[in-house]
């Protein structure tokens, strides 16, 4: 960056909350000197719905649909993270089949989220075509979500101690077909963007986030790894049986917008790898944990058996009687570390449910990254951070 004499034309510009490149309702107050950003103040909260307050008045199971609406580009991954958090609180473990299906759900969500992130990144940089290719592939993921959970968008697929239902028999063939097709889309995007001169010039050495700054600001997910920190919760603290899958964690060297793009591209390829392994070694057996006082019984049994009917009645009317205690569980979501800090005082509802949203924390880097850049670079920086306001504002 050239140190220019300030021209004395200080200007304050309001960007957002209705601005296409803020990817939602993010508002930025920019202080400009000419076109150079001297200060950037993000204003958030336009999508605040009070999820944490609502949670304190719902049973543990009733909160699952709200997790769909956190990172609404990867609802399956949120469902999975929340279910594991409550299961950890209750001290139960789900059977291998459930773990494998949850891995599939999380990785599909990751590919879907990264495809959108990269598609809009390209579009913000003026490459409209990429967006069309990635959305075609995302459409197929939505079909898979529909097959798996019955809903395309708000999946609510997990339950505490298991899943809403086992995956249907036609799901695995559909997934295999998708896994054959999606690498071609990723390669296509790669060919369109990775060596595209315009894209390179707009993203390279723009918004460089150093390793120390990234850790200090609590950045997680692809943005942290692009800055050179090899930390992926799936590897560092495996959950859902991730230790049984072989995959690599891509790490960047520079920490600029281009590195963040490259890390996401490679993560999609690794997700395809994980999905292939999960599809090939899908274990048989039940998909719900056996704890009858925590896990909702099968509907057929509720209608025919006395004991199941009682359990179902108690679980639905009073909620899961989670033991008193507090738990912090975090999962590697597409956007970063999605953590749930749960405090239970017994009874059917949470005493406190804090959501550690990766988008909320990652957005704190914007003032640091934007300083000294042009407004058009800010668009690249925002797109490369890949945040979702639904999760940020909760």
């Amino acid at each position, binding site marked *: 960056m050239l140190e220019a004499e300030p021209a004395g034309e200080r*200007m*304050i*510009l309001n960007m957002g909350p209705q601005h296409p490149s803020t990817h939602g309702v993010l508002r930025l107050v920019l202080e400009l000197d000419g076109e150079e950003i001297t200060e950037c103040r993000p204003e*958030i*909260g336009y999508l*605040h719905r*009070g999820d*944490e*307050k*609502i949670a*304190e*008045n719902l049973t543990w199971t009733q909160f699952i649909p709200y997790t769909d609406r956190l990172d609404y580009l990867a609802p399956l991954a949120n469902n999975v993270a929340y279910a594991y958090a409550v299961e*950890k*609180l209750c*001290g139960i473990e789900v059977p291998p089949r459930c773990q494998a299906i949850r891995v599939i759900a999380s990785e599909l969500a990751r590919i879907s989220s990264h495809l959108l992130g990269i598609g809009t990144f390209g579009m913000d940089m003026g490459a409209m075509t990429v967006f069309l290719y990635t959305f075609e592939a995302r459409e197929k993921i939505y079909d898979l979500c529909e097959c798996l959970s019955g809903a395309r968008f708000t999946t609510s697929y997990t339950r505490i101690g298991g899943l809403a239902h086992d995956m249907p028999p036609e799901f695995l063939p559909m997934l295999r077909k998708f896994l054959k097709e999606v690498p071609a889309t990723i390669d296509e995007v790669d060919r369109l963007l990775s060596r595209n001169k315009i894209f390179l010039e707009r993203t390279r050495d723009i918004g460089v986030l150093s390793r120390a700054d990234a*850790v*200090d*600001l*609590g950045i997680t997910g692809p943005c942290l790894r692009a800055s050179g*920190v090899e*930390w992926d919760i799936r590897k*560092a*603290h495996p959950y859902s049986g991730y230790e049984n899958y072989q995959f690599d964690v891509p790490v960047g060297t520079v920490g600029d917008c281009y590195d963040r793009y490259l890390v996401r591209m490679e993560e999609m390829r690794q997700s395809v790898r994980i999905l292939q392994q999960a599809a090939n070694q899908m274990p048989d057996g039940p998909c719900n944990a056996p704890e009858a006082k925590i896990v909702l019984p099968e509907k057929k049994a509720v209608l025919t058996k006395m004991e199941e009917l009682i359990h179902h009645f108690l679980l639905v009317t009073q909620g899961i009687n989670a033991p008193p*205690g*507090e*738990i*912090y569980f*975090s999962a590697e979501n597409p956007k970063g*570390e999605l*953590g749930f*800090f749960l*405090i239970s005082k017994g009874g059917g509802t949470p*005493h*406190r449910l*804090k959501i*550690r949203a990766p988008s*909320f*924390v990652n*957005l*704190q880097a914007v003032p640091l990254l934007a300083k000294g850049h042009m407004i058009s670079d800010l668009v690249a920086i925002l797109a490369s951070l890949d945040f979702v306001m639904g999760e940020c*504002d*909760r």
Partner: protein
Amino acid sequence: MTPQQLVEQLRARFNGAIHNVTEFRGQTGVTVARERLVEICRFLKAECGFDMLSDLAGVDNYGQYPRFEVDYTLYSFTHRFWFRLKIKVPEDDMTVDSVTGIWRTANWHEREAFDMFGLRFRGHPNLRRILMWDGYPYHPLRKDFPLAGMEAELPDPEAGAGRAEPAPMLGGPFVAGSGARPSSQREPRQYDTLAEREEKQKLHGDTA
């Protein structure tokens, strides 16, 4: 290092400031004295390698004394475990020392805890509401705040409510407001010479 060893280390170093240690499902939480929080956090970061603050959460234990607590979830990339610090905050003195000087990520987390619970973080560089609008009178995550909400005046942009400061550069060449001159008249570059500009402005009765 294990969480247990860390607790021992903290006990040896800050004897008397470590009040209560809880273990639940393999996770350790330590309640520490509120006055020595920053000191302990600095020690944890500098000498124990807890370089990341994962999460900061306010909690309202309505009906208990002290009523509020703040939970700090720390992570160490060297030792690879999460560790929780807790402090208790009474309702009559809701000040907590800010840890933004230790982990910059605490900035927004502390603003959120201030917004939702009314906890005041001493030494915070910019303690403003973050999710609710400036001027909102309540702290919604407190237990005595009803789920249905409470009536509050909506931010009125006309009256300037909902913003902490007047619009920057009000009346300048880039700001339009109702009743102001149209932009074509405010545009300084529409005149060829300075003399022409002054003449035209006089014509419009404009002294700006």
